[in-house]
């Protein structure tokens, strides 16, 4: 029974009954506690029913009676079938209370359903609360900033409306890659001048944003590099640095091509100011236009240099001319002379100019003729050299003509020797070639083998990367589930030890088994006894019948035998009566035992004392009633 009590007490505590720590069985329950427990249970089971019930007993007897009666009524409404009245609560006896509480605890709604109900309700309640708050804020009228009370401050201030601005930050860590020669200067700067990150931004609001932005950009750059390296970098079979430099040169080439193609049309049509339509060339123009950034951003094409050069020259010339002209104008009295002089000078100048033009034209002409003459000379020289060669060959043949046959033979032998030598050389070449080709093939094979090997390793590396990714994901997932389970475990009630329950249940089951075995044993015993009894009665009947027959036959002949037959009949009858009596005694004894048990249970129910108490209560109520009646009469 202790286990049952523990479970009951635990359930009651969960419902909200304040059961003291030292109470661990129903025997120790006071009637106050019983009333509280029952009321709370009824409230949880059916909130409408228990709402009106008080959790504590009032002092007055009649009030107590009323509370007890309504409680009993509530229990019956919930569905309790057992005997129940107000005395059950006021003058408790253990088994009744236990059966009542067990019924109520079984009727309690399951916890899980309750929890899910609650969570759905919670979010709905939250949303309703948010909506209500928003409605209230919308309903409040807007107040100009100067008139705002602290009440408005929370909803109408603009303090929370910082727009996000990012500023570049400088960290000592990230510039570690800078070249070594300036390390001292860099260190000095970091130590003496560089402010902490919180002071680097112009406002506090942008500090966090800047740091986050910086971190995010670094992270994404690292991830991108990682992806690229895994997908393309590994396949290229270069070290990371080599891969980077190669990519850089490729990109540079591409950009150069693009820029060149975009810049070409603009340089053609540059004198007419109309700019080419393509956006890139426009951009290039703007770069050219902005003077301070010019030498930084673009080195400037050939065209811009020439343009600049010509412009500066012209402006310089203009600057040189202007003071001279100004000087002449200032002298008024010698103006005429000067004008004459000017005219003559201009004439002279024009003449000189035309002379110069003519001379340059002559020079050009001369240059052209000179070039032509030079060309002719070269051609002639070439023709001479050819003629010389031809002449020498002819000379040799003429020398050889007188001894023609001999010379022919000699020539033939020479040709043969040459052919032989060629064959010889070819054989030698073959001799050398064969091993070289073998070597070449071998090396080629090795190369392809290595290629295969490296391909295999590459694919292995790739699969490893994939595996790493998958397993990290898995680990993350598992960690998450672990966390979730841990939180679930924590949220579960801890005071109910499941193992104790199961152990107890197993014990009970084994007990029941033992009892069942014993019962079957006893049953078989009774069956055997019954059988024996049946056997004996059968035997007795048969013996009696045989004896009866024998004696009856003889009784017709003999008087004394007749007497003995009478005795036999009497004996049989008496024995039957005896057996009947014994059986009757047995039933009566059983009945007596039943009655005794009933008496005992009734005694356990303390009926007498309860009755006395009820009588007392009745008297008390009557007294109260009479007192009240007296009061009424007095009043």
């Amino acid at each position: 029974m202790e286990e049952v009590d523990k479970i009951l007490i635990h359930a009651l505590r969960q419902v909200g009954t304040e059961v003291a720590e030292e109470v661990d069985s129903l025997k120790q329950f006071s009637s106050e506690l019983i009333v509280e427990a029952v009321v709370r249970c009824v409230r949880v089971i059916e909130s409408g029913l228990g709402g009106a019930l008080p959790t504590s007993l009032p002092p007055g007897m009649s009030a107590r009676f009323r509370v007890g009666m309504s409680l009993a009524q509530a229990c019956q409404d919930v569905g309790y079938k057992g005997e129940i009245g107000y005395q059950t609560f006021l003058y408790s006896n253990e088994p009744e209370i236990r059966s009542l509480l067990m019924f109520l605890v079984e009727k309690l709604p399951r916890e899980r359903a309750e929890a899910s109900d609650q969570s759905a309700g919670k979010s709905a309640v939250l949303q309703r609360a948010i909506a209500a708050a928003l409605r209230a804020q919308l309903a409040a009228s807007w107040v100009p900033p100067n008139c705002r009370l602290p009440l408005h401050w929370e909803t109408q201030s603009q303090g929370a409306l910082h727009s996000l601005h990012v500023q570049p930050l400088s960290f000592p860590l990230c510039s570690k890659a800078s070249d070594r020669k300036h390390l001292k200067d860099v260190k000095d700067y970091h130590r003496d001048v560089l402010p902490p990150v919180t002071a680097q931004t112009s406002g506090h609001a942008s500090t966090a944003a800047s740091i986050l932005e910086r971190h995010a950009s670094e992270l994404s750059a690292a991830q991108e590099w990682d992806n690229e390296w895994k997908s393309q970098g590994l396949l290229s079979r270069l070290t990371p640095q080599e891969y980077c430099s190669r990519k850089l040169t490729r990109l540079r080439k591409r950009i150069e091509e693009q820029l060149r193609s975009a810049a070409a049309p603009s340089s053609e049509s540059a004198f007419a100011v109309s700019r080419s339509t393509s956006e890139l060339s426009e951009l290039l123009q703007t770069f050219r236009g902005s003077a301070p950034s010019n030498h930084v951003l673009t080195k400037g094409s050939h065209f811009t240099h020439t343009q600049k050069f010509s412009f500066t020259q012209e402006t310089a010339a203009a600057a040189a001319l202007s003071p001279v002209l100004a000087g002449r104008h200032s002298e008024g009295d010698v103006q005429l002379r000067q004008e004459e002089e000017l005219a003559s000078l201009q004439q002279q100048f024009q003449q000189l100019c035309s002379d110069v033009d003519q001379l340059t034209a002559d020079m050009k002409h001369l240059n052209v003729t000179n070039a032509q003459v030079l060309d002719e000379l070269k051609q002639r020289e070439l023709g001479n050299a050819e003629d010389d060669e031809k002449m020498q060959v002819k000379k040799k043949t003429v020398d050889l003509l007188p001894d023609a046959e001999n010379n022919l033979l000699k020539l033939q032998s020479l040709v043969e020797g040459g052919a032989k030598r060629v064959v010889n050389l070819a054989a030698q070449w073959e001799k050398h070639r064969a091993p070289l080709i073998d070597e070449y093939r071998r090396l080629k094979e090795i190369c392809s083998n290595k290629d295969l090997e490296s391909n295999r390793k590459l694919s292995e590396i790739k699969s490893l990367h994939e595996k790493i990714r998958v397993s990290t994901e898995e680990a993350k997932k598992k960690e998450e589930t672990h966390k979730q389970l841990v939180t679930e475990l924590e949220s579960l009630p801890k005071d109910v030890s499941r193992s104790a329950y199961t152990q107890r249940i197993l014990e009970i089951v084994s007990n029941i088994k033992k009892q069942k075995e014993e019962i079957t044993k006893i049953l078989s015993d009774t069956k055997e006894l019954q059988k024996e009894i049946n056997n004996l009665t059968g035997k007795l009947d048969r013996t009696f019948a045989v004896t009866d027959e024998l004696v009856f036959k003889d009784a017709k002949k003999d008087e004394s035998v007749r007497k003995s037959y009478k005795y036999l009949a009497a004996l049989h009858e008496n024995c039957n009566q005896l057996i009947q009596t014994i059986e009757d005694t047995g039933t009566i004894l059983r009945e007596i035992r039943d009655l005794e048990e009933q008496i005992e249970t009734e005694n356990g129910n303390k009926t007498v004392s309860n009755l006395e108490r009820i009588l007392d209560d009745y008297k008390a109520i009557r007294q109260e009633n009479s007192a009240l009646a007296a009061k009424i009469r007095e009043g």
Partner: protein
Amino acid sequence: MTDLLNRISNTDCTKLCHRVVDGLCGREPPRRADYSATWSLQEWLQLLDFLTALFRLAVGSNISDEEVLAKLSDVNSSHADAVLSVLRARQQDIRCALLDRTNNISSATLQDFDWQLKLALSSDKISSLNTPLLGLSLDVRENGALRPVTMEMSTEELSTLISSLEAANKMVLQLK
């Protein structure tokens, strides 16, 4: 013009140069109010222009220390050394800033972006809506002027935006 630098002490010169570099890197530039007693407005502007151009040129064209010193020929040697040391110390920062400038060569560039996730609980017609909305604000620098662009998107619109951005990113990756 560079002899304007001689009017302040050596340490002040270092500080000023660092502030100039800060301004070049997108942080707070030096304030004129701090130096109004030393230089007139015109001198101040001249000096700032000169220093900025010097730093840009020195890092962008990667010229040697001697050439830098030659450009600073009419400044005290100690001041010139100070400028040079600042240049050395901040070389990486200036380089990053210049690279950034070159990267942002298109007509409009994204300066900052911010987002807010909102949950619309109800509207004027429907009592319970429960629709998530994303407010996205972009600060776009267009021809040197900052132009804020703000938009609000539902879930489908957001996914459309993200997919188009991903396609753009793919194109950029192909360019690489």
